[in-house]
């Protein structure tokens, strides 16, 4: 149970991403063309419920199933890192029609060539690690 719960959460995630068509390249194109409310509705309602849950967890100091207080890590304040990194990520997101989550789900759907995208994403992460100290943060 210690590890299998993460696999179950992932399975649920994969099914939701499929049934909501979030893993479709067309849906991402549609979102960036503002031609449907679908993606905005999904992200918006997920964030609204997430905000409520985060508020309640903090308000009532709820604990995890391991009995530890649930902690939220505040992000470090900076603009260049989030803006430049964000724009680069957005370029890749609209190109492939997938962010990291859907990449894994698409592999499960039998899109073998997505393994190439994933390998490229690993390389991109590695190259970021190599040049991290030289980039504005």
């Amino acid at each position, binding site marked *: 149970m210690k590890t299998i719960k993460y696999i179950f959460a992932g399975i649920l995630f994969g099914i939701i991403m499929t*049934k909501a068509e979030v893993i479709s390249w067309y849906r991402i194109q*549609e979102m960036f063309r503002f031609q*449907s409310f679908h993606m905005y509705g999904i*992200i918006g309602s997920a964030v609204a419920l997430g905000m409520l849950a*985060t508020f309640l967890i903090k308000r009532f100091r709820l604990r995890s199933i391991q009995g530890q207080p649930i902690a939220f890590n505040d992000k470090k304040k900076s603009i260049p890192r989030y803006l430049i990194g964000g724009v*680069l990520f957005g370029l890749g*997101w609209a190109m492939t029609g997938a962010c990291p989550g859907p990449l894994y789900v698409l592999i499960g759907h039998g899109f073998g060539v997505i393994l190439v995208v994933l390998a490229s994403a690993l390389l*991109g992460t590695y190259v970021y690690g190599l040049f991290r100290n030289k980039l504005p943060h």
Partner: protein
Amino acid sequence: MLELIKQPWAWYIAGPLLALVAIALLFFGKSFGVSATLRTTCAALGAGKKTSFFHYNWKADRWNILFVIGAIVGGMIASQFLMHPTVSVSPDTVQDLQKMGVQDVSGLAPADLFGWQALFSLKGMVVLVLGGFLIGFGARYAGGCTSGHAISGLSNLQLPSLIAVIGFFVGGLLMTHYLLPLILQL
């Protein structure tokens, strides 16, 4: 019930369910974010020997590898048993894509861009290889992706996450409206 599952799910079903996955992870003592798996994988493959960024206790993050293995299995289950025939994408989008030269608007993605044969075309190479690279590089540079920033970060009212999400959209709009039409002509 089965009929209901076989239909595409509306946003007001999918969004809250997605939040439940993120909330479940909080109660497991973790934080929802998928792009971290890329860093964990680099570290597990031994990148820490060369670069300090990957030299950390990645074994503490092994849970996120299990999560994405689950996501792959979830995709398999959904494609085998829960799939609906077509993506109900807006007719305006279909029209725009056809103007850009994407004629076959079927399945989850155009086959000529997301099949193995795409690797033998310049536009396919650019989309798959450069696109993947930008996802990995950009997500780590920005400190997270759609799940980590747009869902977890915004839920926790983090200003950096809002900046990152604005960045995601600036990049996405640039690509969709200006660059992708050029790439598809390659």
